[in-house]
């Protein structure tokens, strides 16, 4: 059975301009990322700044700048949408796979009415035009919890939360199967964040929409997603069901990331991870996390750990994973 979306060995490189500050001439931003997405699934892509999560989902939409090169396959219902470069991806963009960008609520066109902006992609992709498009725009606004008559308003008349909903409505304009959400709640208050997350959950349940939620905020993913992948230095460090990631983490980074996140219960001490991520413009030997890891072994220095199965649906890229499960779980 083929999944709705299969990302298979995705690599992204960025060519760097030749200036005095850059030593290498390429940044290997995404290194062989692979995961699957089922219909109606909510999948989290978690990581800190620079880990490659935004680049990964931009690659899924083919929205990379001209200094980027890609390798690998992205199969939507079995078809590799990247095979023909920009031209092949464009057929799927917005119609099958749509995106809510980071800071989308600030990227609305200030001189166009909100309804017009939602209707615009419909006309462009041949889904609906004119009156039909406007009517559908109203329906979409209702779907995301905004009264349909607000379609006649301008973005500055909306609050931050409402603008984010409008951005989501825009993404749903052509009825995509997959919604990519890049930090959809980062700049929002916690109550508005809860509203948006509840909206995304409801849309996923009612419309059968698959959602890839990209964020650095672990608790958000823990609350909303069924499965998640933790990215580090352009690679997937660990992927699996949310419960497994929290209760049985196999990669030290996953464990330490949870430990660095404060919780309301305030029981466990919060610890930071020393050091910082490696530079991606240089070749990395061994495990990219070994400098910051608290349990490295000799093998980590020389051999790059590949992502492998620990249990059904649970993968980790760590030499110590699986074999020392009980030991690691005990430190949690």
């Amino acid at each position: 059975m083929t999944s709705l979306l299969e990302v298979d060995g995705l690599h992204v490189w960025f060519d760097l301009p030749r200036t005095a500050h850059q030593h290498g001439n390429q940044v290997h931003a995404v290194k062989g990322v692979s995961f699957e997405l089922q219909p109606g699934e909510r999948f989290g892509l978690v990581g800190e700044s620079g880990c490659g999560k935004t680049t990964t989902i931009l690659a899924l939409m083919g929205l990379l700048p001209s200094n980027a090169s890609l390798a690998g396959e992205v199969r939507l219902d079995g078809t590799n949408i990247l095979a023909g470069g920009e031209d092949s991806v464009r057929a799927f963009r917005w119609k099958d796979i749509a995106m809510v960008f980071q800071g989308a609520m600030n990227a609305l066109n200030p001189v166009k009415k909100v309804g017009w902006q939602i209707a615009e992609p419909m006309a462009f992709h041949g889904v609906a035009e004119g009156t039909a498009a406007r009517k559908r725009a109203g329906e979409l606004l209702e779907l995301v919890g905004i009264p349909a008559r607000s379609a006649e308003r301008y973005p500055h008349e909306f609050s931050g939360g409402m603008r984010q909903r409008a951005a989501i409505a825009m993404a749903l304009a052509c009825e995509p199967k997959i919604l990519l959400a890049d930090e959809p709640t980062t700049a929002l208050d916690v109550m508005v964040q809860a509203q948006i997350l509840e909206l995304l959950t409801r849309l996923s349940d009612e419309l059968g929409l698959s959602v890839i939620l990209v964020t650095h905020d672990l608790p958000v993913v823990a609350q909303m997603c069924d499965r998640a992948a933790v990215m580090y230095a352009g690679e997937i460090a660990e992927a699996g069901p949310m419960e497994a990631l929290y209760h049985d983490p196999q990669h030290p980074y996953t464990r330490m990331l949870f430990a660095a996140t404060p919780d309301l219960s305030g029981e466990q001490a919060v610890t930071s991870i020393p050091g910082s991520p490696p530079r991606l413009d240089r070749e990395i030997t061994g495990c990219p996390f070994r400098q910051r890891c608290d349990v490295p072994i000799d093998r980590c220095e020389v051999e790059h750990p590949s992502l492998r199965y620990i249990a059904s649906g649970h993968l980790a890229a760590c030499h110590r994973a699986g074999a020392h499960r009980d030991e690691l779980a005990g430190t949690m």
Partner: protein
Amino acid sequence: MSEIEQALVPAPRPEATVPAPAPGIAAAPEQPGTAVPLLEVVDLVTHYAVRRGLIEAAARRPRRWVHAVDGISFSLQRGEMLALVGESGCGKTSTVQTILGMVKPSSGAIRLNGTDIAGLADRQMRPMRRIVQMIYQDPYESLDPRFTVRQTVEEPMLVYGIGASRDGRESLIVSALEQAGLTPAEMYLDRYPHELSGGQRQRVAIAASLVLGPKLLLADEPVSMLDVSVRAGVLSLLDSLRKDTDMGILMITHDLSTAAHFADKIAVMYLGRIVELGSAADVVRNPQHPYTKALLSVVPKRDPRDRQAAQILTGETPDPVDVPSGCRFHPRCPVAVDRCRVEDPQLREPAAAAAGQLAACHLA
């Protein structure tokens, strides 16, 4: 010397350490309850006038005001961390800006070690600024990109004429950087901000404020723009600093989890008022105000199994220009009754609460 300046003259400091606290200020009695609080805010009100256009002014329409801070009172002891929690528009930033003296309050008192500094003129405020320092939210913007780390940390000393010689200042700079966790300090002295990560920049900002030996540190979302793995380090730094130097910290945060972990007391603000105030443990485990309860219920938890029913309020915080009548939370309150529409509740200790925990709710 004025009364204020006399109270703040620091003791002559030994060369190689960060300044010792001033004699007048450090002399505090043993029991925290009887000591003069480090910071006492009483009925603070800060309103901003909404700018009127020519036509409105000519038509003599009544001036509209942004009720940024609408009568808040709290106190902070030495060595204590108080977290001001709330959503945007609640007035937490305005509160801190008023305490810092960047904004003049409309009424109320701000007592620093007993001395009222509310509404002081800039000149009189100047000696006060040595005692009160601020850490800003954006580490990428709070350092002058043209200043080296050394220059940034040195600047406060130059402003106040501390450290007679270059070398004298240098050793103070080094010790401040090391206190902020940037070791070896020599590696950082000649760096420019763009060569540092966000966490390092924030530490430089902290070092620059430590160098004057502040008694009160105001921190506006000090870690919200940093990576998760780095946040705990900076927060632990602030925590240990207050324990080591008996500094009081007033921290603004929107993240209740951070407040629960690091703060001693939490004050929850809504539309310019404090709606709940108490120890962090009490507020989080036994919230009294409906707003606090709703906020706590929607904070995402780390544990995916811990998915309690979230009490998601409808709508968003209203504009502080048009404050609702009666209890300002009543339009969104899930348990509002008629009384709430009419009568503005005062902050008092509810029956079901712990000692010292206050809430402004008729039903609490």
